[in-house]
C-alpha cells in the first residue's frame, strides 16, 4: 500500500500540482466551495425532515431541488479531494485521522442515500415519522463529523 501511495505521488501531473503552489491552493479552494454546497444542501434537508427549517416548503419538493446540488458538489468534492490526496498519497494512506475522515464521509453518504430514499415515503405521510427524524439527526452529526475530521488532518497530522 505504501508503494501504491509512492507511485501515485510520482505521476507527472501529480508532482506538477504538488510543486505549483497556486495550483494546489486553488484545488483546495475548489474543494472547500464544493463541500460547503454539499454539506449545506444535505444539512438543510435534514433540518427540514426534523421540522426545524424551511417548514413552508413541502419536503419532497425541497429534496428534489437540493439533491442535484448535493450530489454534483459531492462529485466535485471527491475529484478535488482526490487531487489533493495524490500529492501526498504515501503519507495520507496510513494516516489515522485521514482514515477516520474517509470512514465518516462514507457513513455520511450512506445516511444521505437513506434520506433520499425515505423522503418520497415520508413526504406522503400526514406527519414525518420519528424514525425519519432520527436518521436526519444522525446524518447531521455525521456531516459535522466529516468536516471536523477534515480540519483535524491538518491540526493533528500536519498534512494538506
Amino acid at each position: 500500500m505504501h508503494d501504491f501511495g509512492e507511485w501515485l505521488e510520482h505521476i507527472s501531473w501529480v508532482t506538477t500540482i504538488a510543486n505549483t503552489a497556486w495550483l494546489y491552493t486553488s484545488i483546495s479552494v475548489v474543494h472547500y466551495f464544493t463541500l460547503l454546497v454539499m454539506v449545506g444542501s444535505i444539512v438543510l434537508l435534514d433540518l427540514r425532515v426534523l421540522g426545524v427549517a424551511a417548514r413552508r416548503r413541502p419536503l419532497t419538493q425541497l429534496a428534489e431541488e437540493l439533491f442535484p446540488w448535493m450530489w454534483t458538489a459531492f462529485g466535485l468534492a471527491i475529484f478535488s479531494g482526490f487531487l489533493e490526496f495524490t500529492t501526498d498519497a504515501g503519507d495520507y494512506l496510513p494516516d489515522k485521522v485521514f482514515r477516520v475522515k474517509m470512514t465518516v464521509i462514507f457513513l455520511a453518504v450512506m445516511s444521505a442515500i437513506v434520506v433520499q430514499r425515505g423522503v418520497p415515503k415520508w413526504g406522503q405521510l400526514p406527519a414525518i415519522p420519528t424514525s425519519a427524524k432520527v436518521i436526519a439527526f444522525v446524518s447531521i452529526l455525521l456531516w459535522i463529523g466529516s468536516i471536523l475530521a477534515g480540519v483535524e488532518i491538518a491540526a493533528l497530522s500536519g498534512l494538506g
Partner: protein
Amino acid sequence: MPMLFAICYWLEHTSIGTAVRESTWLFPTIETIHIFGIILLVGSTSILDLRLLGWAFREDSVSKLARRYLPWTWAGFVIQVATGFLLFSSEATKMYDNPSFQIKMLLIVLAGVNAFVFHMLAYRKVATWDDAPVAPLSARCAGCFSILLWFGIVAAGRWIAFI
C-alpha cells in the same frame, strides 16, 4: 513596535488566545463552527443576491426574501465574528503579516459598504420594483458585487493557511 502589532501580540498571549493555540481540539472545533457559519452567512446572502440578479427565486418578491433570509445572514455574521476572533487571537501576529488575511478583512469591509449602499439607495424604493423579475441596475450590481465579494472572502480565508 507598531501599535497594531503590539495589540496582536498581547491578544495572542491572553489565556483565551493561548488556550485555542495550544489545545489539539479547540482550534479545529472552532474552525468547524466557522465553516458552518460560512454556509449560513454566504448561503443566505447568495439567495438574496441571486434574486437581485434575477437568476433565481423570481417568484418571490425581493422584500419577502430579504425579510426571510437577512436574519440568518446576521446570525451567521455574529457566529463568524465570534469564531473568527477566537481563531485570530490564537495566532494574531501571524495573521498580522498574512496578506491573504489582510485581503479577507478588506473584502469584508467592502461587502459591508456594498450592503450599506444598496440599503440606502435601491432598497429604499424597493416597493416600486419588488415583484419585478428584473431589478434596477444598481440592485443587480449590488447583488453581483455581493456574490463576488463573499466568494472572494471564502477563498481568501482558505488561502490563509497556505501562506
